[in-house]
C-alpha cells in the first residue's frame, strides 16, 4: 500500500468529503488562500471557492457558535481552531452548545459539526499553544472525541466524523502531521466507525492504552521490551467518546496489567476515566495497580530544552512496564 503522511491523509479526507455535497463548509483563521497554518486545508479554497472555504476573523467563540448555527440550518460545517488550546476561548460553545443544543431543545435538531483542532507539544510553542485538551470533553454529554494516531486512522475517522450527524471534536497531534503510514488509494474508500479501539500491537503481558503521539512512543517502547521477552499489547482507543470499553477490558482480562499513556497532564486526564472504568469493571482481573503516565501537572514550559521533561518518553514507559511486571 502507498505510504502518505497524516497531513496528506487529512487533506485527502477533507477534499473527498467536501466533494460529496455542497452542504460542507470549512472555515477558520487562514484556512482559505493560505491553506492553513499547518497546511491542512491546502487546495480547498481553490477547488471549492471562497463561500464554502473561508477565512474568519480571529474570534474563536464566534467560529464555533456560527458552526452550530449553520449545522441546525442544513449545513455541515467543518471549522478549524488554529490551536487546540483555543477550545478554552470557545469552551461554552463546544462543551455546552455543540453537545447539548439538540438534546436540550427536545431532540429534533441535528448538529453535524466536525471541529478540527491541532494539539500537543511540538517545539517550543509554550503553555498556551501546546496543550492536549481532549480529556475535558469526556465530561461533555453530547460530543464525540476522535484522536487519531496514524494517517490511516486520521483519514478514516475524519470522513466518518464529517458524515456523522453529531458534533465530533477531531484532535490532531501536530507532531504526527509529518509521520507516514499506509493508506489505501483514494479510490478505495474506507470509513472507521467511532467507538472502535484498535489493537496496534498484540501482546499478552501488559496492556498499554495510549492516544495520539503516545501510541507511537508506546509501540517503540514495546519493540524494546520485546527484545527483553516482554510481550506488550498496545491499544489505541481512537475515540475517547464513545469509548470502546469492551476492547480495553478484554485486553485487561488477558494481561492483568495496565499502563495508560497520554500527553495531557496526568491529573484529570483521559487516563483518569479509563482507570476508573477498569477499577470499576475489571478489578479482579488486575494483578497490578493501574498505572498512568501523563505530562506533569504544571503549565508547559516554552523552552525546547525542557519540553522533553513533559512529553511521556519511551523510557518512562519501559520503566512503568517493568514495575507492573514486578507484581
Amino acid at each position, binding site marked *: 500500500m502507498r505510504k502518505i503522511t497524516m497531513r496528506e491523509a487529512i487533506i485527502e479526507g477533507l477534499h473527498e468529503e467536501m466533494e460529496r455535497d455542497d452542504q460542507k*463548509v470549512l472555515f477558520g483563521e487562514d484556512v482559505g488562500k493560505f491553506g492553513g497554518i499547518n497546511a491542512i486545508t491546502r487546495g480547498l479554497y481553490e477547488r471549492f471557492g471562497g*463561500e*464554502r472555504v473561508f477565512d*474568519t*476573523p480571529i*474570534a474563536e*467563540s*464566534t467560529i*464555533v*457558535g*456560527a*458552526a*452550530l*448555527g*449553520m*449545522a*441546525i*440550518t*442544513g*449545513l455541515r*460545517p467543518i471549522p478549524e481552531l488554529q490551536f487546540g488550546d483555543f477550545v478554552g476561548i470557545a469552551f*461554552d*460553545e463546544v462543551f*455546552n*452548545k455543540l453537545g447539548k*443544543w*439538540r*438534546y*436540550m*431543545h*427536545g*431532540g*429534533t*435538531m*441535528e*448538529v*453535524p459539526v466536525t471541529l478540527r483542532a491541532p494539539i500537543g507539544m511540538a517545539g517550543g510553542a509554550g503553555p498556551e499553544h501546546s496543550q492536549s485538551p481532549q480529556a475535558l470533553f469526556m465530561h461533555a*454529554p*453530547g460530543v464525540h472525541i476522535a484522536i487519531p494516531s496514524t494517517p490511516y486512522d486520521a483519514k478514516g475517522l475524519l470522513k466518518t466524523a464529517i458524515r456523522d*450527524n*453529531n458534533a465530533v471534536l477531531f484532535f490532531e497531534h501536530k507532531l504526527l502531521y509529518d509521520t507516514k503510514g499506509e493508506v489505501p488509494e483514494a479510490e478505495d474508500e474506507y470509513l472507521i466507525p467511532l467507538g472502535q479501539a484498535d489493537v496496534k500491537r498484540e501482546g499478552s503481558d501488559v496492556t498499554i492504552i495510549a492516544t495520539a503521539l503516545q501510541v507511537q512512543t508506546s509501540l517503540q517502547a514495546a519493540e524494546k521490551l520485546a527484545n527483553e521477552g516482554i510481550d506488550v499489547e498496545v491499544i489505541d482507543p481512537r475515540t475517547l467518546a464513545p469509548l470502546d470499553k469492551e476492547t480495553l477490558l478484554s485486553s485487561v482480562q488477558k494481561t492483568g496489567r495496565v499502563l495508560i499513556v497520554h500527553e495531557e497532564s496526568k491529573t484529570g486526564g483521559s487516563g483518569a476515566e479509563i482507570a476508573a472504568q477498569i477499577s470499576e469493571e475489571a478489578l479482579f482481573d488486575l494483578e497490578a495497580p493501574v498505572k498512568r503516565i501523563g505530562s506533569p501537572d504544571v503549565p508547559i514550559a516554552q523552552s525546547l530544552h525542557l519540553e522533553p521533561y513533559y512529553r511521556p518518553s519511551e523510557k518512562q514507559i519501559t520503566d512503568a512496564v517493568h514495575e507492573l511486571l514486578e507484581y
Partner: protein
Amino acid sequence: MAEVYQKDIQLDDYSKEDLVTFYREMVKIRKFDENLIRLMHEGKVSGFYHSGIGSEGLSVGSIVKNLRDEDYLYYNHRGCNQKIAKGVPLSKLYGDFLGTVEGTTRGLGAGIVHSADTSRGVLGQAGTIGSQFNIAVGSAYSAKLQNTNRVTVVYFGDGAASREPLHGSLNWAGLYNLPIIYICENNEYAISSRWDETHSVREHIADWAWGYGISNCVVDGNDVLLMNEVTKEAVDRAKRGEGPTFIEAKTFRHRGHFEGDTYDYVDQEELKDWKENRDPIKNFKNLLLENNICVENEFTRVDEEVDQEILEAIAKAESSPMPDEKRIYEGLFA
C-alpha cells in the same frame, strides 16, 4: 449616532384585519403570560419565569407581518413573546413549563429557554444569554450560502448586549453582509442593574453597531406599528442582500426580573408611568378606537376568543402525561 426611528404612519395603509391581528397577538401573549403566572402560583410550573408583560408590542410588531415560518428566530429569555408571535402552538409552550410530553421538548421541560420549533424557524435559545449572537450569524451565513432569502432575527435584552460575543457577531454580520436583524429589547434593566450603570455608550446601545458600519436605530418598542415598520425595512434590506440591521427597541418590564422579585429597585413612579401611559396593548386599542377602526365589543370578542384558546391550550398541555425516567436517555445523539 443611532437615529431615533420615526415614521408618520397612516392607519389606512393597514387593513383592518391586520390591525386586529396585531391586537389579538398582543393579547394572546399577555394572557398566555398571566395564565402561566397563575399556574405557577398553583405550583404546577418547573423553574423560574421572566414575565414578558409590557413588551408585547415589540415582538408582535417585529414578527407577525414580517417573518415567515422559514425565517430563523432566536428568542430572548423574557416571556414567550417572540415564540408566540412566530406561531409556536400555545399548548406546546405550556407543555414545556408543565413538563408534559406536549411540550416542544417532549417532557424534558424548557421553561422559557430551550423550547424550539424548527417548523416555524424557532431555533432555540442559549441559557447563557448573548451566546445566540454567535449562533445566529451561522444561521444567517447558511441562508446566504444556500440562497434561500431567509432572514435571521435575534432578540436579546440590554443586559445581554454587554456580553462579549456581540463583537464577534456584529463583525461577522457586517463582514459577510449577512441577512440578520439584531433586536435589542432595551427594558432598561438587567435584573437589578439599570442599563446606564452597566453600559458605556455614546448615547444609545445601538451606537455600538455604528462602528461596524451596520444600519442601526432606536425605536419605541411599545408602538406595535412602528416596530412593524422598522423591522419591515430591515427585513427588506436583508432580502435585498444589503446586510444586517441593529434595532434598539425601548420598553419596560411591568413585573420584576423573575416571578417573586420584589422589583423595588426601580423608581415606582416610572414603573407606574410605563404601565399606565405606555402599555402597548392599551395604547393600541385606544388608537383603533379613536380612529373608529374598531368598537369596544370587537375587542371583547377577541379577548374572549383568546381566553378560550388559552384555556384549551392549557387543558391540552395539562392533560398530556409527564414522561418517565427513560425520557432523559432519549435524543442525545442523532
